[in-house]
Protein backbone atom coordinates (compact mmCIF):
# COMPACT_ATOMS: atom_id res chain seq x y z
CA UNK A 1 0.00 0.00 0.00
CA UNK A 2 2.75 2.48 0.89
CA UNK A 3 4.50 1.98 -2.45
CA UNK A 4 1.22 2.71 -4.27
CA UNK A 5 0.58 5.71 -2.00
CA UNK A 6 4.02 7.16 -2.77
CA UNK A 7 3.46 6.60 -6.50
CA UNK A 8 0.08 8.35 -6.50
CA UNK A 9 1.26 11.20 -4.26
CA UNK A 10 4.26 11.77 -6.54
CA UNK A 11 2.00 11.86 -9.58
CA UNK A 12 -0.49 14.32 -8.07
CA UNK A 13 2.26 16.63 -6.86
CA UNK A 14 3.96 16.49 -10.25
CA UNK A 15 0.67 17.38 -11.94
CA UNK A 16 0.28 20.34 -9.54
CA UNK A 17 3.85 21.43 -10.15
CA UNK A 18 3.48 21.30 -13.93
CA UNK A 19 0.02 22.85 -14.13
CA UNK A 20 0.93 25.59 -11.60
CA UNK A 21 -2.74 25.94 -10.65
CA UNK A 22 -1.88 26.05 -6.96
CA UNK A 23 0.76 28.74 -7.29
CA UNK A 24 -1.02 30.82 -9.93
CA UNK A 25 -4.63 30.52 -8.80
CA UNK A 26 -5.24 28.83 -5.44
CA UNK A 27 -2.55 30.72 -3.50
CA UNK A 28 -3.56 34.18 -4.81
CA UNK A 29 -7.21 33.33 -4.12
CA UNK A 30 -6.54 32.39 -0.51
CA UNK A 31 -4.46 35.53 0.10
CA UNK A 32 -7.29 37.55 -1.47
CA UNK A 33 -9.71 36.07 1.05
CA UNK A 34 -7.45 37.22 3.89
CA UNK A 35 -7.25 40.69 2.37
CA UNK A 36 -11.04 40.88 2.00
CA UNK A 37 -11.46 39.96 5.66
CA UNK A 38 -8.97 42.72 6.49
CA UNK A 39 -10.94 45.24 4.39
CA UNK A 40 -14.20 44.21 6.05
CA UNK A 41 -12.90 44.43 9.62
CA UNK A 42 -10.12 47.02 9.24
CA UNK A 43 -11.84 49.82 11.19
CA UNK A 44 -11.65 47.62 14.26
CA UNK A 45 -8.04 46.45 14.40
CA UNK A 46 -8.51 44.73 17.76
CA UNK A 47 -11.40 42.71 16.41
CA UNK A 48 -9.25 41.62 13.48
CA UNK A 49 -6.54 40.42 15.83
CA UNK A 50 -9.03 38.61 18.03
CA UNK A 51 -10.66 36.85 15.07
CA UNK A 52 -7.37 36.07 13.32
CA UNK A 53 -7.46 32.33 14.11
CA UNK A 54 -10.98 31.85 12.82
CA UNK A 55 -10.38 33.97 9.72
CA UNK A 56 -7.15 32.08 9.05
CA UNK A 57 -8.83 28.67 9.16
CA UNK A 58 -11.80 29.87 7.13
CA UNK A 59 -9.36 31.02 4.43
CA UNK A 60 -7.57 27.66 4.69
CA UNK A 61 -10.87 25.81 4.18
CA UNK A 62 -11.74 27.90 1.12
CA UNK A 63 -8.31 27.17 -0.35
CA UNK A 64 -8.71 23.50 0.59
CA UNK A 65 -11.95 23.28 -1.41
CA UNK A 66 -10.06 24.36 -4.52
CA UNK A 67 -7.12 22.03 -3.84
CA UNK A 68 -9.46 19.08 -3.22
CA UNK A 69 -11.44 19.84 -6.38
CA UNK A 70 -8.21 19.88 -8.33
CA UNK A 71 -7.07 16.61 -6.81
CA UNK A 72 -10.36 14.88 -7.64
CA UNK A 73 -10.29 16.25 -11.19
CA UNK A 74 -6.94 14.54 -11.89
CA UNK A 75 -8.61 11.13 -11.71
CA UNK A 76 -11.79 12.13 -13.50
CA UNK A 77 -10.34 12.83 -16.91
CA UNK A 78 -10.11 10.58 -19.91
CA UNK A 79 -10.50 7.10 -18.47
CA UNK A 80 -8.05 7.52 -15.59
CA UNK A 81 -10.39 5.80 -13.13
CA UNK A 82 -10.69 2.75 -15.37
CA UNK A 83 -6.92 2.70 -15.78
CA UNK A 84 -6.51 2.88 -11.99
CA UNK A 85 -8.89 -0.05 -11.55
CA UNK A 86 -7.03 -2.03 -14.21
CA UNK A 87 -3.62 -1.26 -12.77
CA UNK A 88 -4.24 -3.29 -9.63
CA UNK A 89 -3.10 -0.41 -7.40
CA UNK A 90 -4.40 -0.82 -3.86
CA UNK A 91 -7.37 1.59 -3.51
CA UNK A 92 -6.24 2.39 0.04
CA UNK A 93 -2.87 3.35 -1.44
CA UNK A 94 -4.59 5.63 -3.96
CA UNK A 95 -6.52 7.28 -1.12
CA UNK A 96 -3.49 7.76 1.11
CA UNK A 97 -1.41 9.05 -1.82
CA UNK A 98 -4.03 11.55 -2.93
CA UNK A 99 -4.68 12.73 0.63
CA UNK A 100 -0.93 13.11 1.21
CA UNK A 101 -0.55 15.22 -1.94
CA UNK A 102 -3.48 17.44 -0.89
CA UNK A 103 -1.93 17.74 2.59
CA UNK A 104 1.41 18.87 1.14
CA UNK A 105 -0.32 21.51 -0.99
CA UNK A 106 -2.37 22.66 2.02
CA UNK A 107 0.68 22.92 4.26
CA UNK A 108 2.30 25.20 1.69
CA UNK A 109 -0.83 27.35 1.56
CA UNK A 110 -1.05 27.44 5.36
CA UNK A 111 2.50 28.78 5.62
CA UNK A 112 1.64 31.46 3.06
CA UNK A 113 -1.57 32.38 4.88
CA UNK A 114 0.30 32.36 8.19
CA UNK A 115 2.65 35.00 6.84
CA UNK A 116 -0.39 36.87 5.56
CA UNK A 117 -2.05 36.84 8.98
CA UNK A 118 1.09 38.14 10.68
CA UNK A 119 1.58 40.89 8.10
CA UNK A 120 -2.03 41.93 7.50
CA UNK A 121 -3.60 41.34 10.92
CA UNK A 122 -0.57 42.17 13.07
CA UNK A 123 -0.72 38.87 14.96
CA UNK A 124 2.22 37.99 17.24
CA UNK A 125 3.25 34.36 16.89
CA UNK A 126 3.30 32.37 20.12
CA UNK A 127 2.98 28.73 21.19
CA UNK A 128 4.78 27.43 18.12
CA UNK A 129 4.62 23.77 19.18
CA UNK A 130 0.86 23.79 19.57
CA UNK A 131 0.36 25.80 16.37
CA UNK A 132 2.46 23.38 14.34
CA UNK A 133 0.91 20.20 15.74
CA UNK A 134 -2.65 21.52 15.54
CA UNK A 135 -2.03 22.65 11.97
CA UNK A 136 -0.60 19.24 11.01
CA UNK A 137 -3.53 17.33 12.53
CA UNK A 138 -6.10 19.67 11.01
CA UNK A 139 -4.42 19.46 7.61
CA UNK A 140 -4.48 15.66 7.62
CA UNK A 141 -8.15 15.68 8.66
CA UNK A 142 -9.09 18.16 5.92
CA UNK A 143 -7.06 16.33 3.26
CA UNK A 144 -8.46 12.91 4.17
CA UNK A 145 -12.07 14.07 4.32
CA UNK A 146 -11.72 16.08 1.14
CA UNK A 147 -10.19 13.19 -0.78
CA UNK A 148 -12.98 10.88 0.35
CA UNK A 149 -15.74 13.33 -0.55
CA UNK A 150 -14.00 14.20 -3.82
CA UNK A 151 -14.28 10.54 -4.81
CA UNK A 152 -17.86 10.40 -3.56
CA UNK A 153 -19.07 13.18 -5.88
CA UNK A 154 -16.86 12.27 -8.83
CA UNK A 155 -18.74 11.46 -12.00
CA UNK A 156 -21.67 13.64 -10.98
CA UNK A 157 -22.48 16.59 -13.19
CA UNK A 158 -22.99 18.85 -10.19
CA UNK A 159 -19.82 17.80 -8.38
CA UNK A 160 -18.26 21.30 -8.27
CA UNK A 161 -21.20 22.74 -6.35
CA UNK A 162 -22.04 19.59 -4.42
CA UNK A 163 -18.55 19.10 -2.99
CA UNK A 164 -18.49 22.22 -0.77
CA UNK A 165 -22.09 21.60 0.25
CA UNK A 166 -21.23 18.13 1.55
CA UNK A 167 -17.73 18.81 2.75
CA UNK A 168 -18.02 22.01 4.78
CA UNK A 169 -20.48 20.66 7.39
CA UNK A 170 -18.25 17.61 7.90
CA UNK A 171 -15.22 19.87 8.32
CA UNK A 172 -16.96 22.12 10.85
CA UNK A 173 -15.47 20.22 13.85
CA UNK A 174 -12.00 20.62 12.31
CA UNK A 175 -12.56 24.34 11.85
CA UNK A 176 -13.72 24.72 15.44
CA UNK A 177 -10.89 22.59 16.89
CA UNK A 178 -8.15 24.28 14.87
CA UNK A 179 -9.47 27.76 15.64
CA UNK A 180 -9.65 27.07 19.38
CA UNK A 181 -6.17 25.54 19.44
CA UNK A 182 -4.71 28.52 17.56
CA UNK A 183 -6.53 31.00 19.80
CA UNK A 184 -5.11 29.33 22.89
CA UNK A 185 -1.59 29.26 21.43
CA UNK A 186 -1.68 32.90 20.31
CA UNK A 187 -3.14 34.01 23.64
CA UNK A 188 -0.18 32.42 25.44
CA UNK A 189 -2.24 29.71 27.19
CA UNK A 190 -1.27 26.58 25.25
CA UNK A 191 -2.62 24.30 27.98
CA UNK A 192 -6.13 25.32 26.89
CA UNK A 193 -5.31 24.32 23.32
CA UNK A 194 -3.94 20.83 23.74
CA UNK A 195 -7.36 19.16 24.21
CA UNK A 196 -8.43 20.73 20.93
CA UNK A 197 -5.25 19.47 19.33
CA UNK A 198 -6.11 16.00 20.64
CA UNK A 199 -9.56 16.29 19.08
CA UNK A 200 -7.97 17.24 15.75
CA UNK A 201 -5.61 14.27 15.92
CA UNK A 202 -8.56 11.97 16.62
CA UNK A 203 -10.50 13.38 13.68
CA UNK A 204 -7.44 12.98 11.45
CA UNK A 205 -7.09 9.31 12.37
CA UNK A 206 -10.83 8.67 12.06
CA UNK A 207 -11.17 10.31 8.63
CA UNK A 208 -8.01 8.67 7.30
CA UNK A 209 -9.04 5.17 8.37
CA UNK A 210 -12.60 5.67 7.08
CA UNK A 211 -11.27 6.97 3.77
CA UNK A 212 -8.80 4.12 3.31
CA UNK A 213 -11.55 1.58 3.97
CA UNK A 214 -14.21 3.23 1.80
CA UNK A 215 -12.13 4.39 -1.16
CA UNK A 216 -12.13 1.03 -2.95
CA UNK A 217 -15.92 0.91 -2.95
CA UNK A 218 -16.10 4.48 -4.25
CA UNK A 219 -13.57 3.73 -6.98
CA UNK A 220 -15.58 0.71 -8.12
CA UNK A 221 -18.89 2.53 -7.93
CA UNK A 222 -17.86 5.64 -9.85
Amino acid at each position, binding site marked *: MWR*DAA*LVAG*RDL*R*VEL*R*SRVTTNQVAPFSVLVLILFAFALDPDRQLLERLASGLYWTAVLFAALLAISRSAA*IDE*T*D*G*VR*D*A*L*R*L*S*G*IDPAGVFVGKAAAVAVVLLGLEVLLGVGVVVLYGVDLAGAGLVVLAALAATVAVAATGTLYGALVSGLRVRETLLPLLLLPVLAPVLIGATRAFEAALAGVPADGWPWCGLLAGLAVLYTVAGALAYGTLLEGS
Partner: protein
Amino acid sequence: MEPVVHLRAAVALLGRFPALAGIDLDVARGEIVLLRGPNGAGKTTVLRACAGLVPVVRGEAVVLGHDLRRDPRPVRRHVGLLGHATGLFDDLTVADNVRFWGRACGADPGDIAAAMALVGLDGRLRDVSVGRLSAGQRRRTSLACLLARRPELWLLDEPHAGLDHETRDQLDGLIGRAVEQGATVLIASHELDRAESLAHRVVELAGGMTVAPARPAPGVPPAELPVSPTQEREASSASPSPAPPEVSHVA
Protein backbone atom coordinates in the same frame (compact mmCIF):
# COMPACT_ATOMS: atom_id res chain seq x y z
CA MET B 1 -6.95 -26.21 -23.04
CA GLU B 2 -8.94 -23.68 -21.00
CA PRO B 3 -10.04 -20.72 -23.10
CA VAL B 4 -8.63 -17.30 -22.29
CA VAL B 5 -12.11 -15.82 -22.67
CA HIS B 6 -15.24 -17.86 -22.05
CA LEU B 7 -18.57 -16.07 -22.16
CA ARG B 8 -21.75 -18.07 -22.26
CA ALA B 9 -25.15 -16.31 -22.31
CA ALA B 10 -23.40 -13.47 -20.50
CA VAL B 11 -25.58 -10.55 -19.51
CA ALA B 12 -24.03 -7.25 -18.43
CA LEU B 13 -25.76 -4.11 -17.27
CA LEU B 14 -24.79 -0.49 -17.75
CA GLY B 15 -26.89 1.04 -14.99
CA ARG B 16 -30.25 -0.64 -15.55
CA PHE B 17 -29.74 -1.00 -19.28
CA PRO B 18 -28.70 -4.48 -20.46
CA ALA B 19 -25.70 -3.63 -22.62
CA LEU B 20 -24.97 -7.33 -23.20
CA ALA B 21 -28.04 -9.48 -23.57
CA GLY B 22 -26.56 -12.96 -23.83
CA ILE B 23 -23.12 -13.05 -25.40
CA ASP B 24 -21.46 -16.35 -26.34
CA LEU B 25 -17.76 -16.10 -26.98
CA ASP B 26 -14.75 -18.38 -26.63
CA VAL B 27 -11.26 -17.19 -27.38
CA ALA B 28 -8.28 -19.54 -27.24
CA ARG B 29 -4.77 -18.55 -26.21
CA GLY B 30 -2.87 -16.96 -29.05
CA GLU B 31 -5.99 -16.08 -31.01
CA ILE B 32 -6.83 -12.71 -32.54
CA VAL B 33 -10.59 -12.29 -32.64
CA LEU B 34 -12.37 -9.36 -34.25
CA LEU B 35 -15.69 -8.21 -32.82
CA ARG B 36 -17.80 -6.66 -35.54
CA GLY B 37 -21.16 -4.96 -35.47
CA PRO B 38 -23.03 -1.68 -35.76
CA ASN B 39 -22.82 1.10 -33.20
CA GLY B 40 -24.43 -0.02 -29.96
CA ALA B 41 -23.91 -3.69 -30.75
CA GLY B 42 -22.03 -4.19 -27.51
CA LYS B 43 -18.46 -4.48 -28.82
CA THR B 44 -16.96 -2.05 -26.35
CA THR B 45 -19.01 -3.52 -23.51
CA VAL B 46 -17.67 -7.01 -24.29
CA LEU B 47 -14.12 -5.65 -24.03
CA ARG B 48 -14.89 -3.82 -20.79
CA ALA B 49 -16.64 -6.86 -19.36
CA CYS B 50 -13.61 -9.01 -20.20
CA ALA B 51 -11.45 -6.43 -18.40
CA GLY B 52 -13.65 -6.74 -15.31
CA LEU B 53 -14.84 -3.15 -15.60
CA VAL B 54 -18.49 -3.90 -16.42
CA PRO B 55 -20.20 -6.39 -14.10
CA VAL B 56 -21.57 -9.56 -15.68
CA VAL B 57 -24.80 -10.32 -13.83
CA ARG B 58 -25.96 -13.53 -15.52
CA GLY B 59 -24.49 -16.38 -17.52
CA GLU B 60 -20.91 -17.60 -17.46
CA ALA B 61 -17.94 -15.26 -17.68
CA VAL B 62 -14.46 -16.64 -17.14
CA VAL B 63 -11.38 -14.72 -18.29
CA LEU B 64 -7.86 -16.06 -17.80
CA GLY B 65 -9.28 -18.61 -15.38
CA HIS B 66 -10.94 -15.98 -13.18
CA ASP B 67 -14.70 -16.06 -12.71
CA LEU B 68 -15.76 -12.49 -13.39
CA ARG B 69 -19.13 -12.98 -11.70
CA ARG B 70 -17.45 -13.95 -8.45
CA ASP B 71 -14.73 -11.27 -8.41
CA PRO B 72 -13.57 -9.34 -11.48
CA ARG B 73 -10.59 -7.71 -9.77
CA PRO B 74 -7.97 -10.47 -10.07
CA VAL B 75 -8.21 -10.46 -13.86
CA ARG B 76 -7.55 -6.76 -14.24
CA ARG B 77 -3.82 -6.87 -13.69
CA HIS B 78 -3.45 -9.34 -16.58
CA VAL B 79 -5.38 -7.49 -19.26
CA GLY B 80 -4.46 -4.41 -21.27
CA LEU B 81 -7.29 -2.23 -22.52
CA LEU B 82 -6.69 0.28 -25.29
CA GLY B 83 -9.95 2.20 -25.46
CA HIS B 84 -11.28 5.52 -26.66
CA ALA B 85 -10.24 7.12 -23.39
CA THR B 86 -6.47 7.14 -23.09
CA GLY B 87 -6.11 7.34 -19.30
CA LEU B 88 -3.34 9.92 -19.65
CA PHE B 89 -2.57 13.05 -17.65
CA ASP B 90 -2.33 16.12 -19.88
CA ASP B 91 -0.01 18.03 -17.56
CA LEU B 92 2.57 15.24 -17.38
CA THR B 93 5.09 14.35 -20.04
CA VAL B 94 4.91 11.22 -22.15
CA ALA B 95 7.71 9.65 -20.08
CA ASP B 96 5.97 10.57 -16.80
CA ASN B 97 2.73 8.96 -17.98
CA VAL B 98 4.28 5.73 -19.19
CA ARG B 99 6.46 5.52 -16.09
CA PHE B 100 3.48 6.06 -13.77
CA TRP B 101 1.23 3.47 -15.39
CA GLY B 102 4.11 1.06 -15.87
CA ARG B 103 5.15 1.28 -12.22
CA ALA B 104 1.51 1.08 -11.12
CA CYS B 105 1.32 -2.29 -12.85
CA GLY B 106 4.60 -3.46 -11.38
CA ALA B 107 6.69 -3.09 -14.55
CA ASP B 108 10.42 -2.62 -14.10
CA PRO B 109 12.25 0.39 -15.62
CA GLY B 110 13.64 -1.79 -18.41
CA ASP B 111 10.16 -2.81 -19.57
CA ILE B 112 9.00 0.80 -19.42
CA ALA B 113 11.91 2.05 -21.51
CA ALA B 114 11.47 -0.80 -23.98
CA ALA B 115 7.75 -0.05 -24.33
CA MET B 116 8.48 3.58 -25.16
CA ALA B 117 11.12 2.60 -27.67
CA LEU B 118 8.77 0.12 -29.36
CA VAL B 119 6.24 2.83 -30.19
CA GLY B 120 8.86 5.43 -31.06
CA LEU B 121 8.41 7.62 -28.00
CA ASP B 122 11.98 7.43 -26.76
CA GLY B 123 13.17 10.47 -28.68
CA ARG B 124 12.07 14.08 -28.73
CA LEU B 125 8.49 13.26 -27.71
CA ARG B 126 9.32 11.69 -24.37
CA ASP B 127 9.61 15.05 -22.59
CA VAL B 128 6.59 16.67 -24.24
CA SER B 129 3.42 17.21 -22.19
CA VAL B 130 0.66 14.85 -23.27
CA GLY B 131 -1.72 17.81 -23.55
CA ARG B 132 0.33 19.06 -26.48
CA LEU B 133 0.26 15.80 -28.42
CA SER B 134 -1.87 14.97 -31.44
CA ALA B 135 -4.56 12.32 -31.12
CA GLY B 136 -2.31 9.76 -32.81
CA GLN B 137 0.61 10.53 -30.50
CA ARG B 138 -1.67 10.20 -27.48
CA ARG B 139 -2.78 6.84 -28.80
CA ARG B 140 0.85 5.78 -29.11
CA THR B 141 1.49 6.88 -25.53
CA SER B 142 -1.49 4.82 -24.44
CA LEU B 143 -0.11 1.88 -26.38
CA ALA B 144 3.25 2.26 -24.63
CA CYS B 145 1.44 2.13 -21.27
CA LEU B 146 -0.26 -1.07 -22.40
CA LEU B 147 3.01 -2.61 -23.63
CA ALA B 148 4.79 -1.77 -20.37
CA ARG B 149 2.37 -3.93 -18.39
CA ARG B 150 2.87 -6.95 -20.69
CA PRO B 151 -0.76 -8.10 -20.61
CA GLU B 152 -1.80 -11.66 -21.35
CA LEU B 153 -5.02 -10.46 -22.93
CA TRP B 154 -5.07 -7.40 -25.20
CA LEU B 155 -8.45 -5.69 -25.47
CA LEU B 156 -8.30 -3.19 -28.31
CA ASP B 157 -11.21 -0.86 -29.00
CA GLU B 158 -10.87 0.72 -32.44
CA PRO B 159 -7.10 0.42 -32.17
CA HIS B 160 -6.39 1.95 -35.57
CA ALA B 161 -8.49 5.07 -35.03
CA GLY B 162 -6.51 8.28 -35.29
CA LEU B 163 -3.29 6.58 -36.35
CA ASP B 164 -1.39 7.27 -39.55
CA HIS B 165 -0.52 4.42 -41.92
CA GLU B 166 2.98 3.98 -40.55
CA THR B 167 1.77 3.73 -36.96
CA ARG B 168 -1.03 1.37 -37.97
CA ASP B 169 1.52 -0.95 -39.53
CA GLN B 170 3.64 -0.61 -36.42
CA LEU B 171 0.64 -1.47 -34.22
CA ASP B 172 -0.20 -4.51 -36.34
CA GLY B 173 3.41 -5.64 -36.01
CA LEU B 174 3.26 -5.24 -32.23
CA ILE B 175 0.02 -7.21 -32.05
CA GLY B 176 1.54 -9.97 -34.17
CA ARG B 177 4.61 -10.07 -31.97
CA ALA B 178 2.54 -10.18 -28.78
CA VAL B 179 0.55 -13.11 -30.15
CA GLU B 180 3.77 -14.94 -31.03
CA GLN B 181 4.80 -14.48 -27.42
CA GLY B 182 1.56 -16.05 -26.19
CA ALA B 183 -0.79 -13.10 -25.81
CA THR B 184 -4.42 -13.21 -26.89
CA VAL B 185 -6.10 -10.32 -28.65
CA LEU B 186 -9.71 -9.21 -28.82
CA ILE B 187 -10.36 -6.32 -31.20
CA ALA B 188 -13.47 -4.21 -31.69
CA SER B 189 -13.19 -2.25 -34.88
CA HIS B 190 -15.02 -0.51 -37.67
CA GLU B 191 -11.91 -0.53 -39.85
CA LEU B 192 -12.82 -3.93 -41.14
CA ASP B 193 -10.30 -4.33 -43.95
CA ARG B 194 -7.32 -3.80 -41.71
CA ALA B 195 -8.74 -5.53 -38.65
CA GLU B 196 -9.95 -8.55 -40.64
CA SER B 197 -6.51 -8.97 -42.19
CA LEU B 198 -5.13 -9.14 -38.67
CA ALA B 199 -7.77 -11.37 -37.08
CA HIS B 200 -7.99 -15.14 -37.04
CA ARG B 201 -11.73 -15.08 -36.48
CA VAL B 202 -14.61 -12.63 -36.76
CA VAL B 203 -17.56 -12.54 -34.39
CA GLU B 204 -20.65 -10.58 -35.35
CA LEU B 205 -22.58 -8.75 -32.62
CA ALA B 206 -25.85 -6.84 -32.62
CA GLY B 207 -28.06 -5.57 -29.84
CA GLY B 208 -25.69 -6.90 -27.21
CA MET B 209 -25.89 -10.45 -28.52
CA THR B 210 -23.80 -12.74 -30.68
CA VAL B 211 -25.76 -12.96 -33.91
CA ALA B 212 -23.36 -15.07 -35.95
CA PRO B 213 -20.94 -17.72 -34.78
CA ALA B 214 -17.27 -17.07 -35.17
CA ARG B 215 -15.98 -17.58 -38.66
CA PRO B 216 -12.43 -17.42 -39.98
CA ALA B 217 -11.37 -13.99 -41.10
CA PRO B 218 -11.02 -13.59 -44.88
CA GLY B 219 -7.74 -14.94 -46.14
CA VAL B 220 -7.01 -17.04 -43.06
CA PRO B 221 -6.99 -20.76 -43.86
CA PRO B 222 -8.87 -22.56 -41.06
CA ALA B 223 -5.95 -24.96 -40.65
CA GLU B 224 -3.73 -22.11 -39.46
CA LEU B 225 -6.09 -20.99 -36.72
CA PRO B 226 -5.56 -21.67 -33.05
CA VAL B 227 -8.38 -23.99 -32.00
CA SER B 228 -10.75 -22.62 -29.40
CA PRO B 229 -12.29 -25.02 -26.88
CA THR B 230 -15.73 -24.50 -28.43
CA GLN B 231 -14.37 -25.48 -31.80
CA GLU B 232 -12.76 -28.54 -30.24
CA ARG B 233 -16.09 -29.58 -28.74
CA GLU B 234 -17.93 -28.90 -31.98
CA ALA B 235 -15.36 -30.84 -33.97
CA SER B 236 -15.61 -33.86 -31.72
CA SER B 237 -19.41 -33.93 -31.79
CA ALA B 238 -20.04 -33.21 -35.45
CA SER B 239 -18.59 -34.72 -38.58
CA PRO B 240 -17.89 -33.83 -41.22
CA SER B 241 -17.14 -30.31 -40.09
CA PRO B 242 -19.46 -27.75 -41.63
CA ALA B 243 -18.28 -24.99 -43.89
CA PRO B 244 -17.57 -21.66 -42.16
CA PRO B 245 -20.95 -20.05 -41.60
CA GLU B 246 -21.99 -16.88 -43.30
CA VAL B 247 -22.59 -13.89 -41.15
CA SER B 248 -26.30 -13.64 -40.63
CA HIS B 249 -28.33 -10.48 -40.81
CA VAL B 250 -30.14 -9.16 -37.82
CA ALA B 251 -33.86 -8.78 -37.94
